[in-house]
């Protein structure tokens, strides 16, 4: 078995893209998974609780529960999907970050554009 031509860390640094250096999770007892599951349950049902209790004005409430949803997405990506694991630079971080940015722009801009008051309906 030959040695790999470049160690993963080297190639990420060679590109001058240190933030793409991969990090592989050690797998003992699945503590992270258990905490991730607990976290996702708490976040989801927490936002349900907030909505049913009408503790905040609607706009604030929507913002808060969407923030909780983003938090949970980050939790899934980090704990379960091991987003930083790769052989060589963890390239997926760049397009995935772009995708979330463009998705946000797509939804926000579409709502903004379609608020017009033209005759077509």
């Amino acid at each position: 078995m030959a040695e790999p031509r470049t160690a993963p860390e080297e190639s990420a640094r060679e590109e001058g893209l240190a933030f793409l250096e991969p990090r592989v999770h050690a797998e003992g007892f699945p503590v992270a998974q258990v905490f991730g599951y607990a976290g996702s349950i708490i976040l989801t049902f927490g936002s349900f609780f907030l909505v049913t209790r009408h503790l905040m004005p609607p706009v604030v409430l929507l913002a808060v529960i969407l923030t909780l949803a983003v938090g949970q997405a980050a939790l899934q990506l980090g704990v379960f999907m091991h987003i930083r694991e790769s052989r060589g630079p963890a390239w997926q971080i760049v397009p995935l970050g772009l995708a979330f940015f463009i998705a946000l722009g797509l939804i926000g801009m579409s709502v903004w554009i379609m608020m017009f008051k033209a005759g077509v309906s």
Partner: protein
Amino acid sequence: MALPGWMLYLIHTLFPANTRRPTELGADVLIIATGAILFYILIIKGRWRHVWTEWITTVDHKKIAVLYLIGALAMLFRAGVDALMLRTQLALPHQGLLSALEYDQLFTTHGTIMIFFMAMPFIFALFNAVIPLQIGSRDVAFPRLNAMSFWLFAFGALLLNMSFVVGGSPSAGWTAYPPLSENVFLPGVGQNYYLMSLLIAGIGTTMTGINFVVTILRMRAPGMTLMKLPLFAWSALMTSALIIFAFPPLTVALSMTLIDRLFQSSFFTLGHGGMPMMYVNLFWLFGHPEVYIVVLPAFGIFSEVVATFSSKRLFGYEVMVASLVSIMFLAYGTWVHHFFTMGAGPAVNAFFGLSTMLIAIPTGVKIFNWIFTMWGGRIRMTVAMLYQMAFIPTFVIGGATGIILATVPVDYQFHNTYFLVAHFHNVLIGGTLFGLLSGMYYWWPKMFGMKLDEHQGKWAFWLFFLGFWVTFFPQYLLGLEGMQRRMNTYPFGLGWHMLNVISTIGAFGMGAAFLVLVYNVVWSLRHGERDVTGDAWDGRTLEWAIPSPAPEYNFARIPVVNDRDPWWAMKESGATLANSLSASDIHAIELPKSTPVPFLLGASFFLFGFGMVFSWWYVAILGLLCVIGTLIYSGFNYEEHAMLSADAIRGTEASLGRLQA
């Protein structure tokens, strides 16, 4: 004799009255003639086995490139004929050659085919032919997926093209805006054809985007960091990223229209709270990035061509890369400029007008860098270089008229006039098509092992270039005179007559250029100058370091790259790869195996699409089951690769004169 009921039903559904006109019957004759020729070659001459094993089941990126190129040129012919028919109809006022419906169908298929089935496959042909060689790789990241992309394109194109003679063409324009494209206004199968063929080809395109992003990120030769990547590869990376981000909104917009048409939902209908403008929003969310999807590869091609034929290093590499990246970003923030007149309000329009003008900055930077690359170089006027030289002024004028259109109040005047038509043909032909033809002449020796004849090529170029300006410059004036696009005829006395005649003459000049081009290709395949060195143009990048055409495995050994123009640097130090490998350097190579799965997947999707078009649910479900079955079969097939023995490689290298004695 009375035919049975089901047969009458089939005849009336598949061949309704609007497919029994002279143009369609002429097409029928052509199809039958082509079919007969194919039958003769495949069955009578017994070539079907060769075609099946070498071409249909292939997963080799170089052969897939040839298939894409054949498809693109065939589609260029079909959509070009559409354009000539349109221009003939418009040459004189009150012309009656085409009915309004026929005219609508022709401009719809002209636009759809030129964008989706000519420009896209032409780009993928060059990506496939060049990118793996340029980055020092043996194939793309996913060879089988690559073949699937091709067959989805091919069967999508087949579906759209057969609409002309089976069932009726789409006729709502290449953008297919609702409510016109809804069932209420266009009840036939034409729009279903449009939707299904674009959905099927769109899946293939998305997969190609994924394939090339991963290929370029993960398969570069050691030492080739991103800042040593050739610019064509950079443009391929940015194009593929644009495809990944832009095609999903199109898929969603088309699917929603399809569900509206076939299953009575209420997305874009006029009643039930539907909103047709949401389609326009989603369509241009794809449509604007698409403009850059087709033009960025041309930028990449010109960057390679100009450096090679000026015998100079490209001027301002870092800035060229930065402007590619910033164009890719800005391309997502400008889509509303396609529908300023929708009435979204001054804030929205001002925002998108400004973001559109911003794109002129990185594009201008690139223009200057190409000019500075030529400055002081030893320029060789080959056909590829001629297209590059023609591109610069043409694209600058196209870009400048684009800035005029980006000015919102002015756009309210010019929207949907011939000024707009002239503008986008100016950038799409002057940018994309000039670039693709330049790339075709430049990389032809690498793809086929012989040069295209330069003398004939220059004839084709001048006819095409002059024909282009004679066609489209009068259209700017027609737009200023107030002529609307998509009108099938016009009355006397509006002052449009002479300009339309000139424009039509120019269009036939471009048609003549296409014929010369085809003659050039056919002549050169037989008599063209063979390229025995592998380096036909005194090139700079890695693809010129290997034989033409490249052997099946591309590189017997993968090189380590230390320079931005590795092959040029090597030649500077007096080296050639030709005598460098000794027999002991060569080891066995694992190559992907041919498989019928991609072809079968395409055929299954075709069956599914055909069933959906005619709302024959059993056929559609059968097609879908075939798709799933093919995927499962493919999943259980673990024998994707085969070894090519070291001796076979040594034999090939020796026969190419690249092995040390």
